[in-house]
């Protein structure tokens, strides 16, 4: 709770960790999967402008191309039209082979901590591989991040399998933050969690976000989570995925759980819900059922 107090007295723009870069510009991006001639359009003509340090949630029915978009952003997949710029520099385009990098780190839906490494080794992995830090410096920074993110330094020498799934996910976010990424990409990281753990994770994520303000692209199909966490909620249409609606969330920060029953929150929810339900219905009618 001490962290909450700290957030309240820190004005957003005066925060020392305020993002100075991490502007993402997604311009008319399309992605067609064409494994055997029958072109499946996963993403179509999708354009989004994301400001440095902005928390953007992308909401849409399953199979709407959210994850495809994220994989293209991360450099795991190619795109078939359009381009993506990061701080004005080309990141992905048709002519560019996909290139992942430590400036855009993903936290995956099912988790991807290396099970054979301890928590500390997992977190130190990035800087050591990139040779941006010495072993001692990396260890110090890792322990510091762990300590600041809810006292996780006590589990530094544990293996991931010894942690709860919520702790694992937090460690994973810390591992990403360790690389000072410009953009943090979260692919439905809390999907498999019950509502209580989810609420706890939201609190931790918001704390981390206030500690080091990075641009966040957060993929989810949970509308309430999106509104509660994000500055901007982008609603995507069902396949072919494209931007249906962009909503600025004016709820003040720090976000607190009681806001979820505020008039403002409910009004935003009503507006977004219309769009999402329409798309979900379309997706359902097309027989594109939820698949895990």
């Amino acid at each position: 709770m001490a962290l909450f107090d700290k957030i309240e007295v820190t004005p957003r723009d005066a925060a020392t960790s305020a993002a100075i870069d991490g502007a993402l510009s997604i311009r008319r991006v399309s992605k067609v999967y064409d494994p055997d001639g029958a072109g499946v359009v996963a993403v179509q003509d999708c354009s989004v402008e994301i400001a440095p340090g902005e928390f953007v949630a992308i909401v849409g029915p399953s199979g709407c191309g959210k994850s495809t978009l994220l994989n293209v952003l991360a450099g795991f997949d190619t795109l078939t039209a359009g381009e993506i710029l990061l701080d004005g520099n080309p990141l992905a385009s048709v002519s560019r082979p996909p290139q992942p990098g430590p400036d855009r780190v993903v936290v995956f839906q099912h988790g991807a901590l290396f099970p054979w490494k301890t928590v500390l080794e997992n977190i130190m992995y990035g800087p050591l591989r990139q040779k941006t830090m010495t072993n001692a410096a990396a260890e110090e920074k890792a322990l510091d991040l762990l300590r600041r993110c809810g006292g996780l330094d006590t589990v530094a020498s544990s293996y991931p399998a010894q942690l709860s799934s919520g702790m694992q996910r937090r460690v994973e976010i810390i591992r990403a933050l360790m690389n000072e990424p410009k953009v943090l990409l979260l692919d439905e990281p809390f999907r498999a969690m019950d509502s209580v753990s989810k609420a706890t994770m939201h609190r931790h994520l918001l704390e981390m976000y206030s500690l080091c303000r990075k641009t966040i692209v957060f993929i989810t199909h949970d509308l309430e989570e999106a509104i509660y966490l994000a500055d901007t909620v982008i609603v995507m249409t069902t396949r072919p995925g494209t931007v249906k609606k962009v909503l600025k969330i004016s709820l003040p920060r720090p976000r607190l759980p009681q806001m979820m029953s505020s008039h403002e929150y409910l009004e935003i929810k009503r507006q977004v819900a219309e769009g999402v339900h329409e798309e979900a219905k379309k997706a359902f009618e097309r027989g594109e059922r939820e698949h895990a």
Partner: protein
Amino acid sequence: MRSSSAFVRWRKGLNWRGAVAVASFILLWQLLVRFKVPGFETIPTLSDVFSTFWTKYMLSAKYWKAWAVSFERVGYGFVISQVLGIPIGLLLGTRQMFHDVMFSVIEILRPIPPLAWVPISILFWPTNEMSIVFITFIGAFFIIVINVHDGVRSIKKEHLWLARSLGASPWRIFQRIIIPSVIPSIAVGMTLGIAVTWNVVIAAEMIASDTGLGRLTWEGYVSNTPAVVILGMISIGLAGYLSTKLVDYAEKKMMPWRKA
């Protein structure tokens, strides 16, 4: 009071149902033989086996030599199968070219039972010892290859993606992501492999050798001393059990993250 609590813990840890089952089995065996139930006329009792061991084998160099020889064959066959099988499995999983060339060959050779290799290996290898080690090797080789290959194919793509994101070179990814990911599959291959190795070495010794625990058992049959047959069988069981324990220990050392 420490000793009494240790005693209580020992009593709790003791699987008394298992002990009763073993005792009942021995008693039943003794009774079936003693009352000459049809089929059991020529079977020795456990006490016969034990007295044979006590009077003739316990201090016999030949008996312990049989242990050593069989262990040596299993050891060579097993170690060579791992040393060759693990890299081949890794190559099959990571190099498409290697996979295309080798996989069909491996899939054709794999179903041939190790014992079907006995005649050709006796013809091929200059010494009997080499052919037995070779047959033992065959027993564990394909198992480890298939397990490692499968292990590489089931590596989480997120791990590979993430390692690339965080700046790992392809060689580093191989060393630090692919190898540790495959270790659990190697462990499975080793567990299955060591069991097969003992199966194979015993059969091979009966066919093609004049030493080893398999030969000892067979000689017991040929010389019409059934107590020796049973002694051989019990020895093989113990030897297999010991090797499994060794492999289990090695596996635990290989995967410290699994101890939780």
